[in-house]
């Protein structure tokens, strides 16, 4: 049935166009032969096609446009006629003889246009006549198009200020009056459409009405372009009349469209100055009108206006824009208790943006807005609506972007309260936004209180919130999150050591609640912040009269010890071991021997009990030896114990080459350059000899397992170590020892059973070159090296 209808419509339209074109043809013929009577006859027939009721607005428009084009030519003819002496007044009267009213009125408007141009009568008189005569058409679609035609032809003939049509009798007041009347009538017709036809076709009607809305809105546009309208006239005449029509028509579609039109079309300064009136209209509108969108758009415009130039800001203050808008929103929300939460938040979001632009220094206003939001949200529990949560994120991000400083945002007491209503996913999103803002602006967070407040806000990242077990959290996302928390911790700093210690304690408290998955990310930055604080304390004068409670390196180390214990529950032994060794070095610098020893003990326990991967063991051993080598705080006994253990571990590594290398590295434990009592030549040599034995064993093993003795590279490396200590003046490393090692290597390389290894050869060659070079140096060094034969 409907398909038939559409097909029919196409048919009627084609028929209408055909009829129109045919009559137009005859009309043109008449015009060409200056036959006024015939021209009028055919034009009237042509315009009769517009009398149809069968077309939808969309199709009617097509017909109308063709008629419009033809009427332009007719108008030109009329103009010619008057120049040829035909009286325009006669013409004006003549066209009124047309049989049907619709063609009659189109022709009248066309002649009227020429009439006004001729200036034989005041513009206002003609316009008034026309706008009232158009009342003859009460059919909505036909009437709207007719009046639209009137508006189009009269557009450039309004007696505006500075226009040629302005005179003593014609003023801008008349122009305004004309447009307002046309507008009012058009709106009435438009609204009437809603009530025509059966109820079941309501949706279709609304769609059709929507297609026509610009015809009505155009009038407002025209009004906005009239130069003679100043603020006073707008306030006294234009706005009240327009609003009167909008309110009285009691039509949802019209009200929504026209309110928005007013806001978009007239200048922002006008809106500011008429804010009371404008806002006063909202509660009078139909309850189904989407006021929040219109209000939001108004606030958006005003925000942009405020942002455009600082000069306009005083105006905002003068009209008390904020409180008016705030009240208006409050009233709207009250009047619509069923408004969905998305609507409420959108409104407050727009208001907040407005506030931030117009009153950037009034934190209390911003807080007020957030507080109103909280009140509306209370009792609703966590939000489920995706769009609503997105809006809340936008709401909360606005102050961050404006102030560029989380600290200012933290001063808004209602900020954290709004965040309470976010579900854990969105909380994390918001937390990430906050952290990014801090990192981007390089904000330093400098008090424990602020750290506490901040961690409260971002708690979704710091720990698992109640009832959420996100096993589905993407691993990469989780890593990124936690790394951003780690970076954040670096931004907490205060020169004052007491405050810094409080900050560290606060951070510790929060991250320890984070659970085993988070600790490997969050503990390291905490540790290093603490070690930096230790250094700072060292730099300060020791205060012998200091209070019991004041921070000392010892206290910090105790805290660190307890913190690092938690890593062992995860388990994360390699990381824990590295951090224990770092702490040991720091304790070494503070001359705290027992503390350093305890850290080493913990590291060793981890090595023995938890680190079983071969590669990890090698790395751990290097770190242990490297750290121990630098320690000066240990007494002989302690040092001996730790060294003995380290050497033991080295000799027990899985692969022989690793063993060998670790053991010769241990030789350095017995020789520390800048401490004379730390130079034990014998034990160095013992170590190196042990390394040699291991290298030998490696060779034999290789021979047994693979049939060749493998590479000599380990021997060459040990040779290098011999040379190192020889040069340092270790009396136990003799020229003879070096010589025999060189011979051993040479023999091995030439032996059949050894595996050729270019790398080992190169190493040997460069070692020998080194010896030569040292000889060439002359002086004490040259003398030393002289006896070595290569």
């Amino acid at each position, binding site marked *: 049935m409907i398909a038939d209808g559409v097909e029919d419509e196409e048919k009627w339209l084609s028929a209408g166009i055909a009829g129109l074109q045919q009559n137009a043809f005859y009309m043109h013929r008449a015009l060409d032969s200056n036959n006024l009577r015939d021209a009028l006859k055919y034009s009237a027939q042509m315009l009769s096609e517009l009398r149809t009721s069968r077309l939808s607005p969309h199709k009617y428009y097509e017909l109308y446009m063709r008629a419009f084009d033809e009427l332009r030519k007719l108008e030109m003819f009329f103009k010619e006629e008057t120049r040829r002496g035909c009286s325009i007044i006669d013409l004006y009267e003549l066209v009124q003889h047309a049989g049907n009213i619709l063609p009659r009125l189109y022709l009248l408007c066309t002649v009227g246009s020429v009439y006004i141009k001729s200036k034989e009568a005041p513009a206002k008189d003609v316009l008034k006549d026309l706008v009232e005569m158009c009342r003859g058409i009460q059919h909505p679609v036909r009437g709207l198009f007719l009046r639209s035609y009137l508006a189009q032809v009269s557009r450039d003939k309004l007696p505006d200020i500075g226009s040629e049509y302005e005179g003593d009798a014609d003023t801008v007041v008349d122009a305004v009056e004309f447009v307002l009347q046309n507008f009012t009538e058009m709106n009435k017709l438009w609204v009437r459409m809603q009530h025509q036809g059966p109820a079941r076709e309501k949706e279709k009607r609304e769609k059709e009405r929507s297609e026509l809305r610009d015809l009505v809105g155009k009038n407002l546009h025209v009004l906005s372009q009239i130069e003679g309208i100043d603020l006073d006239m707008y306030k006294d005449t234009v706005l009240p009349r327009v609003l009167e029509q909008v309110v009285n028509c009691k039509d949802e579609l019209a009200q929504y469209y026209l309110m928005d039109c007013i806001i978009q079309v007239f200048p922002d300064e006008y809106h500011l100055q008429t804010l009371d009136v404008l806002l006063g209209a909202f509660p009078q509108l139909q309850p189904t009108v989407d006021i929040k969108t219109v209000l939001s758009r108004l606030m958006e415009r005003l925000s942009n206006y405020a942002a455009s130039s600082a000069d306009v800001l005083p105006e905002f203050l003068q009209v008390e824009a904020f409180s008016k808008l705030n009240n208006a929103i409050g009233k709207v929300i009250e009047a619509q208790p069923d408004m969905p939460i998305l609507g409420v938040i959108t409104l407050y979001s727009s208001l907040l943006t407005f506030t931030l632009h117009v009153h950037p220094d009034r934190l209390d206003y911003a807080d007020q807005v957030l507080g109103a939001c909280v009140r509306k949200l209370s009792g609703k529990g966590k939000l489920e609506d995706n769009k609503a949560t997105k809006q809340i994120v936008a709401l909360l991000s606005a102050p961050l972007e404006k102030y560029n400083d989380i600290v200012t945002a933290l001063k808004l007491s209602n900020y954290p309260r709004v965040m309470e209503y976010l579900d854990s996913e969105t909380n994390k999103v918001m937390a990430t936004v906050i952290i990014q803002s801090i*990192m981007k602006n*390089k904000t330093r967070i400098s008090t424990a209180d602020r750290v506490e407040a901040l961690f409260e806000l971002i708690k979704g990242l710091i720990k698992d919130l109640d009832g959420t077990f996100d096993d589905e959290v993407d691993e990469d996302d989780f*890593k*990124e999150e936690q*790394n*951003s928390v*780690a*970076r*954040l911790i*670096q*931004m907490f700093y205060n020169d004052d050591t007491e405050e810094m210690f409080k900050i560290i304690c606060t951070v510790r408290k929060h991250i320890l609640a984070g659970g085993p998955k988070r600790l490997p*990310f969050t503990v*390291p*930055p905490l540790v*290093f912040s603490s*070690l*930096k604080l230790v*250094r700072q304390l060292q730099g300060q004068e020791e205060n012998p009269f200091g209070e019991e409670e004041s921070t000392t390196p010892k206290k910090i180390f105790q805290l660190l010890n307890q913190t690092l214990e938690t890593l062992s529950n995860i388990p994360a032994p390699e990381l824990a071991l*590295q951090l224990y060794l*770092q702490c040991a*070095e*720091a304790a070494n*610098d503070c001359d705290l021997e027992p503390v350093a020893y305890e850290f080493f003990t913990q590291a060793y326990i981890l090595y023995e009990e938890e680190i079983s991967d071969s590669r990890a063991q090698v*790395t751990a051993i*290097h*770190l242990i*030896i*490297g*750290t121990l*080598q*630098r320690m000066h705080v240990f007494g002989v006994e302690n040092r001996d114990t730790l060294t003995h253990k380290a050497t033991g571990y080295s000799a027990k590594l899985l692969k022989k080459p690793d063993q060998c290398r670790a053991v010769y*590295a241990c030789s*350095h434990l017995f020789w520390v*350059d800048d401490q004379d009592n730390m130079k034990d030549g014998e034990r160095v040599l013992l170590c190196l000899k042990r390394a040699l034995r291991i290298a030998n064993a490696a060779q034999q093993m290789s021979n047994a397992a693979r049939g060749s003795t493998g590479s000599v590279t380990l021997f060459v*490396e040990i040779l*290098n*170590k011999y040379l*190192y200590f020889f*040069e340092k003046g270790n009396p136990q490393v003799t020229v003879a020892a070096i010589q025999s090692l060189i011979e051993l290597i040479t023999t091995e390389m030439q032996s059949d059973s050894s595996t050729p290894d*270019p*790398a080992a*050869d*190169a*190493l040997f*060659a*460069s*070692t020998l*070159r*080194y010896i030569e*070079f040292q000889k060439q140096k002359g002086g004490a060094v040259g003398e030393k090296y002289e006896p070595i034969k290569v």
Partner: protein
Amino acid sequence: MVLVLAIGDLHIPHRAPDLPPKFKSMLVPGKIQHIICTGNLCIKEVHDYFKSLCPDLHITRGEYDEDYRYPENKTLTIGQFKLGICHGHQVIPWGDLDSLAMLQRQLDVDILVTGHTHQFKAYKHEGGVVINPGSATGAYSSFTYDVNPSFVLMDIDGLRVVVYVYELIDGEVKVDKIDFKKTPTTRSAH
């Protein structure tokens, strides 16, 4: 002229939040032909950042690096020079130039780039040059109390390499340069 960036020990996010902004604005993609990284980045984001500066990226593993697949050491040839990279925690005593020279002999390279101590060093010995680009973020180091963010840019041209060191001192970037020339050595035939 071949530009090689030597950089490392950023320790992001354990010890530093990010590269200093003044460094970031200097390091733009397209200007550098190779990046040599001593290790301890520590996370993938830093790796990706370097990759975006220059696709030819060589990294060795530092003890805190998240990625276990980086090698312990690496060698590569650029122009007439053989370069070696190693983080340095494996060479004991840490920072000891003689021990580093031994590593250089082991890797058989003209230029050895290592890190770990967070102290810039450029040292010439008979076997070649040892360069430590320091820490690009000025991260905490048990080695020294005074860490300024630094990195190194090497300009390799024929047998000559100019080492530019960029240090951030009191908020200002200071540049220094050191010249090294390689003498074509005659090695005994293998």
